[in-house]
C-alpha cells in the first residue's frame, strides 16, 4: 500500500512539473521565448537531469532499505 502511495505521489510530482510549464505567466513566457528559445532547451535538460537524479535517489533509498532489513 505504502508503495502504491509513493508511486502515485511520484507520478503527481512528474505531472506537476509539466504543468508548471503550461501555467506560466507572461514574464516567464517572455523569458522562454527570448534569445533563440535557448531557455526551452535549458528547461528540458533540467527536467531530464532532475528526473535522472530522482531515479538514482529512489534506487539508493530502496537499496538502503534492503540493507537495513538484512
Amino acid at each position, binding site marked *: 500500500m505504502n508503495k502504491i502511495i509513493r508511486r502515485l505521489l511520484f507520478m503527481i510530482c512528474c505531472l506537476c512539473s509539466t504543468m508548471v510549464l503550461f501555467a506560466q505567466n507572461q514574464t516567464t513566457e517572455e523569458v522562454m521565448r527570448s534569445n533563440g528559445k*535557448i531557455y526551452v*532547451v535549458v528547461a528540458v535538460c*533540467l527536467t531530464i537531469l532532475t528526473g535522472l*537524479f530522482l531515479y*538514482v*535517489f529512489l534506487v*539508493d*533509498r530502496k537499496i538502503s532499505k534492503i*540493507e537495513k532489513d*538484512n
Partner: protein
Amino acid sequence: MKKSWWKILSFVLLVYTVVAGFLIKVPDLPIIHQSIRNLYFHVCMWFAMMILFIISFVYSILYLSNSRYKNDIYARQFAAVGAFLGILGYSTGAIWANYTWLTDQNQSLGSVLKEPKLLGAAIALLIYGAYFVLRGSFTDIDKRARVSAVYNIFAFVMLFPSIWIIPRMVGSLHPGAPGSDTGNPALNAEKDLDAVMRMVFYPAVIGWTLLGVWIATLRIRIQLLQDKTLINE
C-alpha cells in the same frame, strides 16, 4: 538513503553545468561555433570515465595485495560505470564530429571517423569489454577475482597508448594531435580554454564524476547484498 554531501553537490554542480553551460557566453570559433558547449558534456564523460577507471585500477591492486572479495566487487562495478561513460563519450563524440568534421566536400561520416583518436578510444573500450567477458567466463570465484584483477591492471595500462599517446603521434582532426595548433594535451586548459569556459568546465567534470561514483556505489551495494554469504568480514 545514505545521505552524503557529495550526492547533493553532484546535483547542484550538474544543474549549474546545464544552466551556465547553455547560457554563458562562449568564444565564437570557426566551424565549431556554439557546439563548443559540448565541452561541458562530451569531454566530461571521458574525464569521469578516466577517474572511475583509476578507482577501479586501485581496487584491483588492493585485491591483489589483500585478497578481500569486497575489493573485487568494487573494481568490477567502477569499471562497469566507467565503460558506460566511455560509450556515452564515444557516441556523443560521433554526433559532434558529424556536424563539425564533415565539410561540404562529399565526405561520408565513415571516412571521417577513421581517426586515430577514435580508433584508440574504441580499442580501449573493447579491452574493457573483454574484462567483463573474462569475468563472466570463470566459475571459480577466487580465480575470477584474481585473474580479472590482473587483467584490469593490463586494461588500465592499455588506456595510455590507445587514448593518450598514439593519437598525439599521428595526425588527427581531434584536438590535441600534432598539426592542429591546439597544443599537445588533448585539452590544454591554459591555452585552449577561455577563462569563462573553465569556470563551467571544472565544476562539470566534478559533477559528472560524482554522479558516476554514485551510480557505481549503488551497483556495489546491490552486489554486496547478493554476495553477502561470500563476504566474511
